[in-house]
């Protein structure tokens, strides 16, 4: 068991070091840039995508189609699904015990961005 511990620990640190070195020098993931030509999505359209397998969320002004990611989300479905089809910035900013999501989550979220939330007419 001592040998198993030593070997697995050494391999672990070797892999962590590899991921750190390559990750550090690699370009960051290319987030979908909120270009000027980005599609404007009205609140009504957003609201039509309120199902677990067809889930859009408006977060920080952007609209994100997170249907594909939802099964991967670590929280149980009843925590996340109610925010489908809605403005979910507050929930995103105050997850467990009021803390915001991490920078990594921000980067991941950007990959699901499909447009901007259109401002509602007064």
């Amino acid at each position, binding site marked *: 068991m001592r040998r198993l*511990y030593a070997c697995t*620990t050494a391999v672990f640190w070797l892999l962590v070091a590899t*991921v750190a070195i390559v*990750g550090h020098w*690699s370009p960051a993931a290319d987030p979908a840039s909120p270009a000027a030509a980005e599609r404007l999505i009205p609140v009504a359209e957003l609201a039509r995508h309120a199902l677990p397998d067809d889930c859009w969320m408006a977060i920080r002004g952007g609209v994100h189609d997170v249907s594909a990611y939802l099964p991967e989300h670590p929280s149980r479905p009843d925590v996340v699904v109610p925010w489908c089809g809605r403005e979910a910035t507050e929930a995103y900013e105050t997850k467990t015990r009021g803390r915001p999501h991490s920078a990594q989550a921000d980067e991941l979220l950007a990959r699901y961005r499909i447009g901007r939330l259109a401002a509602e007419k007064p």
Partner: protein
Amino acid sequence: MVSATRFRLTIPLLLLASAAGPVCWALPSGLSPLRSLGIILGWAGCGLLLGSLLLMLRETWLSRWLGGLEDMYRWHHRAGIVAYVALLAHPLALAVDSWPEFPAVAWQTLSPFGNGWAVRLGWLSLLLLMFGLATTFATRLPYRRWRWLHASLGIGVLLGLGHLLQLGIEEPVLPLLALATLLLGWRFIRDDAGLAARPYIVRSATPVADGVVEIGLQPLAEAVVADPGQFVLVAFFTGPGFRGCGQFHPFTVSSIGTGGEIRVGVKALGDCTRHLQSIAVGVPARVHGAFGSFLADRPATTQLWLAGGIGVTPFLALLRAGPLSQPTTLVYLYRGAADAAYLPELRALAAADRLLSLQAHATGERPPDMASLLPASPDLASRECYLCGPPAMVAAVREVLRRRGVTPRHIHFENFDFR
């Protein structure tokens, strides 16, 4: 041996259930294979650690149910190391999942910097498990220091559950956290602090060889129930003319009296047991047990007992309990005359019991030639063999017995080690 037959599968099945339960709850669907693997490994490691916590409890009823403290500790170690390997692979699998597309995201997933407390707690837990296991394997550390460093593994388990809570997974984790805290608290209060132990007082202390003292203990309340071949955990405290170390150490019972008094043979093997050689009458002690099933359920066939040094105590306890009911040969090995604990008494017992044949051998400083000391193959064919002594001696004897055609189910031994 009872633990080797009736209970052989109890602990593995229990551990399998403890790993499979959380995995089934969190079984991912529709995710990439690596991400699914990472999630499964994390939950399996978590479940195995909880199973491992159960196996560290020292309760007589639990040890009987699970086949003995020796089996529990063996599986406690195995479950701990398998859980550790699974938990090392858990973050790597999650990070490598993003690797082909974005190596930078893989590092961001893994990195303890720039991530929230969920990832930081995961790292802290993993580092504590790494540190705790490293000290677990450092058997040269003094037992007192080793024990406290080993406890860092328990904190690692709690931090790992904190990592899950920070991820927002509260539903199964809060009960698991309560269970882990209960098991750790139980171990600390009942076993380490001695709540499960009974109060005794030292009534005699008799040197029986160089560096070996036999301590007689009288119960001050209800006595522990012990059988020959079992061991008890005893902590000696401060009393008249003696400052005890207060740690629980395992000692084989060498005698069981009708009034609940017991005697234990203590060999100077470490700081505490060396200090115990000068123990005085009147010192308070606490006794927890009894544990073990060595010599239990012995068949009526001819027997071979092989004892090395202080390993003679379980056999002595049985001989002191009354005459034998089956022909028995006791091969007693010791280094020299000064180390031959209990030899005059064993000779007297052999002279009084026609079923007991005693073969006492001074082996000197070099390892004895077991092949010449053990009976020939035809003589061993129908014997049950019971071995007690240093691990190297037990291993050598098992090898000779195996070569002479004795099957493992006829060889009984206990290699108890608390580390």
